[in-house]
């Protein structure tokens, strides 16, 4: 049973179309990347999946039931969403923040607070204020909160934005581990093509429509990148090839 399914979803605001005839599924344990140029509709797709937006037509299904039929608490027990702009200066200690994951009262949660903190590597930072952590640690604290929430699907909007290379790779490794060891699925939007190559599947969108979907090796081809980003690969700077090899080496 897919955890998330988009069935011919259409979303517009006013006369502007944001999402057109969108259809894809997310299966248990998958780490999936939503890619595409700015304004392609990645964030809108994640908000539709999270129930923050409602489709004009079509259906967003969570565990084979229409998303809008869930109460807030029921939905929170199944999925968690983190926007791109998180409040990194919220006046909470890490332990207080992570404890908020318990608000959904999910009886089938996968992690206790201590386990979630351990998994994201913040065991010794429980008493620290969120604002005193580094950018990577702050992201991981929020992810720990979503793990305590107990859903089987994490929706992350550009979690790698504003992180340096080390923190980006730490986060991808962490998400990979969550997926493979705990059967949780992660759908994240990202821009880095090389990091996209480390995921199970990539969904490429442009102008609100799906233009390609599948294994990164199939989707992230020169031709597809040229189509998605209106970019000729000869424009790319030379160091990118070496960077790609470096990422592959480290991730393996």
């Amino acid at each position: 049973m897919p955890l998330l399914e988009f069935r011919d979803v259409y979303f517009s605001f006013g006369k502007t179309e944001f999402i057109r005839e969108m259809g894809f599924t997310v299966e248990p344990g998958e780490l999936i990347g939503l890619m595409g140029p700015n304004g392609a509709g990645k964030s809108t797709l994640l908000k539709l999946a999270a129930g923050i937006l409602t489709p004009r037509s079509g259906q967003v299904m969570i565990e084979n039931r229409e998303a809008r039929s869930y109460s807030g608490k029921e939905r929170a027990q199944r999925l968690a969403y983190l926007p791109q702009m998180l409040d990194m200066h919220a006046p909470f200690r890490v332990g207080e923040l992570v404890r908020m994951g318990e608000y959904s009262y999910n009886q089938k949660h996968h992690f206790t607070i201590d386990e979630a903190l351990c998994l994201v590597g913040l065991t010794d930072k429980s008493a620290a204020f969120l604002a005193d952590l580094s950018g990577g640690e702050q992201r991981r604290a929020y992810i720990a909160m979503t793990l305590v929430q107990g859903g089987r699907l994490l929706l992350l909007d550009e979690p790698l934005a504003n992180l340096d290379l080390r923190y980006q790779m730490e986060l991808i490794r962490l998400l990979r581990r969550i997926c493979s060891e705990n059967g949780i699925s992660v759908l994240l939007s990202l821009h880095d093509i090389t990091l996209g190559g480390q995921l199970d599947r990539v969904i490429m969108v442009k102008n609100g429509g799906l233009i390609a979907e599948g294994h990164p090796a199939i989707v992230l081809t020169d031709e597809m990148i040229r189509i998605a980003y209106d970019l000729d690969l000869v424009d790319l700077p030379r160091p990118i090839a070496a960077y790609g090899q470096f990422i592959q080496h480290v991730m393996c």
Partner: protein
Amino acid sequence: MNSEKRQIAVNAALLLTFSLLVVAACLVCGQQLLNPFRLDAETFHTLLGLRLPRIVVALLMGGALGVSGAVLQGIFRSPLADPYILGISSGSSLAVSCGLLFGTSLFSLTAPTLAFCGAIATGALVVVLGRGWKGLQPERLLLAGIGIGFFLSATLMLVMTMSRDDGLKRAFLWMSGDLSMTDWDVVPLGLTFVLAGFALAIARRRGLNALTLGDEVAHSLGFNPSRERLLLFLAASLMTAASVSMGGVVGFIGLVVPHVVRRHVGSDAGIVLPLSVVAGGTLLCFADTVGRTVAAPLELPAGVVAAFIGAPYFIYLLNRKKNA
């Protein structure tokens, strides 16, 4: 219990003990120092008939303002939000001042009733104007409150310039937070609405914590941000209205008390809200006692004294945070 929780428990216990000592001191101190262990008829009357109602009203008012400030700072995600920035007190002041300035004879409960109605009507207007297509958004609500507050303040000034002299002084004292005219009569109505607002705020404490993280994260945690904001705004409005109706407008407590409490016990609303009641009530009680003691027989309004005491401490806290 880990060290973080232990520290919070110790700080909370210290605050409670300190508050009890301050309230006890407020009972015996005043224009005349009373000996509670030698109660004659006159002392008994002064304690129960004069000082105790003032202390109870000050505790209720200060507590209500402290919690309202904590709630509003959370739902607006702004450290500057307080009951007075949202126009609620302006509406209340306008209603009472109109009654005091133009009314020929006011019954003892007319002014509190006018204050309460003015505050609730203003709160409702702020909600109506602050509602956008995405529901109750903090920025829109805040701007609506500030705009209405300015308009009502300007109207109040206009009304005061047209008023008779005797009503003017009473209206001025009301707006300075003067507790000298309070008695037991205002307590039942005030207590009822303070308790109702506090119970609602405590019941929505998790929503308040979630809103502090932003609407989208609150939604992800299972809350309806607009609904939570509306309920919490209602709670803050009820408490502010009750406070103003009991003793007039007292500024600063709603702004400073939540910051002081959070500084010592963290930001979890389940802890901050009850302790804001204690700290806010204690501060106003202390301010009122100082106001009726230092320049006796002249009485300084409690709101003015609270600002004189609170502002330096607030600046000290800011500097300590900056240097940390």
